[in-house]
């Protein structure tokens, strides 16, 4: 069975709700303390980017499974979706320190390192969808 949580992000409080939802699911699934922190931080970064750059969007958190020879591997997937301005150069935004808002520019490259799988799909003028998965170890 897959568990899912959807959070609308259109204010700062959406950022807080998204990371709380993320922490609860990570705990429930049995993530250790360090991976809980990694997962929650990744959600916080993606939710803040939606709020800052697209004004509104949503964060979906769901359980995912992967069949392996060693058994079924379980994990949590984040989908961050918005209909904002989109990202012109994905290569550029994935560089450490790249920011258009005076931030640290550590968000997207950070999320990629915190999670096990990471993918950006963005069309200028249409929006951005970022997905990332953390597998349970």
């Amino acid at each position, binding site marked *: 069975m897959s568990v899912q949580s959807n959070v609308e992000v259109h204010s700062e409080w959406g950022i807080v709700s998204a990371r709380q939802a993320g922490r609860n699911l990570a705990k429930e699934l049995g993530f250790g303390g360090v991976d809980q922190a990694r997962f929650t931080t990744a959600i916080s970064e993606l939710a803040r980017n939606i709020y800052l750059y697209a004004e509104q969007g949503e964060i979906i958190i769901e359980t995912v499974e992967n069949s392996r020879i060693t058994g079924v591997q379980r994990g949590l997937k984040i989908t961050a979706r918005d209909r904002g301005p989109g990202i012109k150069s994905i290569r550029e935004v994935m560089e450490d320190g790249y920011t258009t808002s005076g931030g640290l520019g*550590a968000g997207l490259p950070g999320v990629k390192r915190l999670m096990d799988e990471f993918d950006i799909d963005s069309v200028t003028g249409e929006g951005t969808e970022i997905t990332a998965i953390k597998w349970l170890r």
Partner: protein
Amino acid sequence: MRIPILKLKNYLLISVQVDLDDQTALQFQEDLLNKIHQEGSFGVVIDLTSVEMIDSFIAKVLGDVVEMSNLMGAKVVLTGIQPGVAITLIDMGIVLDEVPTALDLEQGLDKLQQELEA
């Protein structure tokens, strides 16, 4: 939400008991600088034992508050950073440059005393 700032002699002590949201973090930045100015404090210990997550925004606010306090002549020590928080910050490549840290409040105060006497 406001984070309480306690005064102990020439020091200020802060124990952050909530997961920091943006407004609370920015309000705290302002409150702390005002308090340092009012009290003429030499040192500040910010205890983060109860903080379960620090993302790049909160990290920037914390780094800035340390730098601003230094400018005002007060040394800041961060204490009680959880393992998950420390690991996450390193994973993200965020370095809290030259910010003194200690295990807990007591050691934080010791560290301040050493730094101020040096």
